[in-house]
């Protein structure tokens, strides 16, 4: 009965939407210029207009009805407004360990082939970038739309250091992190006083500046041609090659038959370790004074000041550390691809990474894995859909926001908990200070 009574307003709403779609479709789809023997002539396609209007009408109706159905369910969506932070969420760590275990055995799974591992590697890059950006956006609450700039700095640092000075990946990795972190500080200084929308605009500009510099500083970066022939990583000095003159290769050292898959598996484990380090770091730092200061800053800057927290140091450290992880991911990207160009670091990348963080539920580590899977993994697996791929991408985003407006996993885990006995309160509290 409830559904029926709501049907009428929904019908009206859908009719209006259908009508609007028809009006819009009329000039865009309804008329067509046809090249005929007598020159150009006008052709009419009213069926197309009708189809567009009908599609919007039914789509809107279904969406409204479905939305109602979701809303009528007991409100599980209000997870983050629950008064009690409650007992520790047992499920989440288990889920986390399952993910890690699954990721570790993946290369040995029966279905795993080169293709799957490649895709998993790509997915893990985005997970790592999401975890890195989460420090800035999720914890410190600084909306950063130019995160890809630090990824680019990391990638170019490795590519150029390795090509010009012959440094190995393992030396370049910390250097790339360092460079990216300094760029993070560089961006941090001018935007210290900004928040929210204004901060977003400036970071967006910063991201573009870095891309444009890479594109135009031809002498150093190779401009639009990018940097190619970047040194591939070696297994602690053992290259993944069939033969290497004057050097022992990986397969010779371990007495294995040569296979190009060795490198794929190695790259996969490398990014897995890098990503897990990022995760571990974030989980740990949330419990340290600096991490708590980030979260407090996100909640209320005035209060932070009056409690003696230096907002300048806090913001700069968040930018620097977030950027550092992007730098690590960037140098991994460069060594994996062997070729980088400014094209890989467009604004769209920043937008996708930000979408991963936001859809995952700001600040949630596992949420980021899930949304990276949805936003990067699924489109990769559905490449067969060709141009409809992006449609599915957009659709997934809309659905997540309808279903979980605060992100997939939005419940914030407290960093310090109350033990049951009052005398132990102080004790546990002291432990985590």
């Amino acid at each position: 009965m409830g559904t029926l009574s709501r049907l009428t307003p929904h019908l009206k709403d859908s009719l209006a939407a259908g009508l609007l779609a028809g009006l819009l479709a009329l000039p865009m789809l309804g008329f067509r210029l046809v090249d005929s023997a007598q020159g150009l002539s006008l052709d009419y396609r009213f069926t197309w207009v009708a189809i567009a209007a009908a599609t919007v009408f039914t789509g809107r109706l279904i969406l409204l009805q479905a939305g109602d159905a979701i809303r009528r369910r007991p409100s599980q969506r209000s997870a983050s407004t629950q008064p009690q932070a409650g007992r520790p969420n047992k499920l989440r760590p288990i889920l986390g360990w399952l993910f890690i275990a699954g990721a570790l055995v993946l290369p040995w799974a029966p279905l795993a082939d080169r293709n799957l591992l490649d895709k998993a590697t790509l997915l893990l890059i985005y997970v790592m970038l999401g975890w890195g950006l989460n420090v800035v956006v999720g914890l410190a609450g600084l909306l950063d739309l130019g995160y890809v700039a630090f990824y680019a700095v990391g990638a170019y640092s490795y590519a150029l250091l390795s090509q010009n000075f012959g440094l190995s990946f393992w030396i370049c990795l910390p250097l790339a992190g360092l460079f990216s972190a300094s760029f993070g500080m560089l961006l941090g200084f001018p935007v210290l006083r900004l928040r929210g929308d204004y901060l977003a605009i400036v970071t967006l500009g910063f991201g573009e500046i870095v891309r444009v510099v890479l594109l135009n500083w031809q002498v150093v970066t190779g401009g639009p041609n990018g940097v190619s022939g970047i040194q591939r990583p070696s297994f602690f000095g053992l290259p993944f090659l069939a033969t290497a003159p004057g050097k022992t290769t990986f397969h010779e050292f371990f007495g294995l038959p040569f296979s190009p898959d060795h490198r794929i598996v190695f790259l996969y484990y490398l990014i897995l370790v890098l990503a897990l380090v990022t995760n571990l770091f974030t989980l740990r730092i949330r419990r340290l004074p600096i991490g708590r200061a980030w979260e407090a800053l996100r909640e209320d800057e005035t209060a932070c000041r009056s409690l003696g927290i230096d907002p300048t140091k806090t913001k700069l450290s968040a930018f620097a550390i977030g950027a550092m992880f992007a730098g690590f991911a960037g140098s991994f990207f460069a060594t994996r691809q062997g070729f980088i160009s400014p094209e890989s670091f467009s604004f769209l990348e920043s937008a996708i990474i930000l979408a991963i963080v936001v859809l995952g539920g700001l600040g949630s580590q596992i949420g980021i894995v899930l949304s990276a899977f949805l936003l990067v993994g699924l489109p990769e697996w559905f490449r067969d859909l060709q141009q409809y791929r992006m449609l599915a991408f957009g659709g997934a985003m809309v659905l997540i926001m309808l279903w979980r407006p605060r992100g997939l996993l939005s419940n914030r885990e407290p960093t310090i908990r109350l033990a049951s006995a009052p005398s132990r309160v102080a004790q546990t509290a002291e432990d985590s200070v």
Partner: protein
Amino acid sequence: MMLSIRQLQSGYGRIQALHGIDMDIEAGEIITLIGANGAGKTTLLMTLCGKPRASSGQVFFDGEDITHLPTHEIVRRGIAHAPEGRHIFPRMTVLENLQMGAVVTPPKYFADDLERILALFPRLHERLDQRGGTLSGGEQQMLAIGRALMSRPRLLMLDEPSLGLAPLVVRQIFQIIREINRDQKVTVFLVEQNAFHALKLAHRAHVMVNGKITLSGTGEALLADPAVRAAYLEGGNVAFDRTERRA
């Protein structure tokens, strides 16, 4: 003298809010500042905390000139500020909020301080695991005061702790402020609109009108003062403001 304010002027851009304030706070007392909306009470507290910056004049804390120190440095000297509107961290639990109050103190004090503050606010003890944003107004105010106390201040500055609270809760809060001052030897600088309670609590009090101190005296003296009674206790503040402007 714990805090001395000398000819302090401050404001927002071209709008001057404080026109030369002189005030002294002795260790161990409760000083109250009352005044109407827009008199400059909050601006005075915030200027003492370094934001907005004083345009002229000086502030001394224990003889040290703190006028130009950044806010977080001022707090580290032993001044805690519970800002107007409470400003608790809504998504963090009560315990985490209290923990944030202790960022400037060495960790070894944390357990004792926490126990002391939970004894002062038993309500907070019951709600340690609850998110700050879901507390009632009175509980949030208790949390804001408790959090400020976690920094082991010698001077506690409270900006309208009674704002938006029911009369019964207001009385409770003022009772706790008295305890903090008496038992924990914390000097209190209280800014209030609720003149009756604030003056009853205060050892000494000042009245502020349009960015100037117009009346000073003991709490009881001001409570008995006809001008104060007319302006802040028995009806609106219209009459008082008018006489001041003419003068």
